[in-house]
């Protein structure tokens, strides 16, 4: 089994290119997958109501919410799957879920 060849391939096309045991040799490469494409609803933040408590950041199962330079917590829509947990946990009701279609 030649390891180097297996490592150099980022994504297998043919079955012969599948890494042994589907091992992933590039740490953190899941960030290349934009899981936000699954989303049906997106979170919209009203900065007038937001108190910058960071609960949305703590509860986000995707870890896609981060604090910006002004202290507001915002979701990275490349990865946000639209689960709505942030909106559910936001007690000042600053986050609402909006249909992507609209």
């Amino acid at each position, binding site marked *: *089994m030649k*390891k180097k060849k297996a490592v150099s391939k980022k994504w*297998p096309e*043919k*079955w*012969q*290119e*599948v890494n*042994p*045991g*589907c*091992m*992933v*040799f590039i*740490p953190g490469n899941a960030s290349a997958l934009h899981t936000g494409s699954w989303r049906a609803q997106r979170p919209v933040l009203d900065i007038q109501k937001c108190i910058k408590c960071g609960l949305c950041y703590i509860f986000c199962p995707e870890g896609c919410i981060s604090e910006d330079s002004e202290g507001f917590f915002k979701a990275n829509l490349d990865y946000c799957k639209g689960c709505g947990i942030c909106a559910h946990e936001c007690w000042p009701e600053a986050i609402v879920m909006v249909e992507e279609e609209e």
Partner: protein
Amino acid sequence: MGKRVGMEVGIAAAEAVALCNIDVAAVYPITPQSHIAEHLADIVHDGRINAEFITVESEHSSISACAGASAAGARVYTATSSQGLMLMHEILPIVSAMRLPVVMGNANRAISGPLNIWNDHTDIMPQRDCGWICMFAENGQEVIDMTIQSFKIAEHPDVMLPIVLNIDGFQLTHMIEPMEFPSQAQVNRFLPPRKPFVALHPDNPISMGCFNMPDIFTESMKAKETALRNSKKIIVKIWNEWGKLFGRHYRPVETYKAKGAKTLILTMGSMGETASVAVDEMRKKGASVGLVKMRLWRPLPIEELRAAIKGAKTLIVMDRAISFGGAGGPVATDIKSYLFQDKSRPRIVNYIMGLGGRDVTVDDFIAMTKKAAKKKEDTFEFYGVRE
């Protein structure tokens, strides 16, 4: 030649594992495997080997612990039987898909229900499609030899697959047999320390056991199937190496007085020894009977089997398991489907026998051979069932 010792085969299996410089054993005791677990725990406790013995709370945990330890680069062993193997079932295809070279001894025992602790092959057959290399030992010496060989085969860089070595419960595990152990120096030469393809380590982060989307899962399965099929080449190579070193030769399919025989009996596991005595008895009376023994069950050695049965008129396949509501015993079903398109093939008479510890004697093999001679076409039936 080493010194011959008289020993219980289950104890000998644990002693063979101890010779292999394992790092981790995670074994949950279950009849008739318990002596392997107990003796291996003793060996580790007494400091005879430098290994970790994980006392797990179930077989689901023992195979999971083995998977984790193997992923971290350790040489690992586990053993189980019957219900224990059934509880492991969920993890078995994961271990093979992750290409982890775990070695397992399985003391074959009937699966419940009704509850029965005695020998047959109904425990291993439901695990048949899990992607493990699956082999059968016939006697105590083979248990020692095949246990040591298994680590070398499983860890080979062109194999990297788990192996289950089937050891018939009681019929084999609890017999006291004369056996010969290779020396530690001989085993060290034959089986150097494991060199894992990769190992989990914080300094070199990798991910194992990853999720597959529909666009890659089929390719992963084809890769796994190919790895298992290709393992036969390496298995044969390592068996040949063993034969040269120790003078005991192992082949995927072995024969006894089979050349030119009109009728062949096909067995797996310990019943091969009884069947060979039956062949001798029948040969004395002039019957054209021989024996074919399948040592390797997965990957199925069909080329070797075809060569072994060439020219035979009747092939009597002995199955110690049944696929309820299906085409017969699992061994016969596989062989039949492979031979289906062959221009000439023997008539296949399949007996379901030796279930749940029912003895299969020399006389039984002779009786089955006589019954099979009267069959006009492929059949499958229970042998020895009272009606």
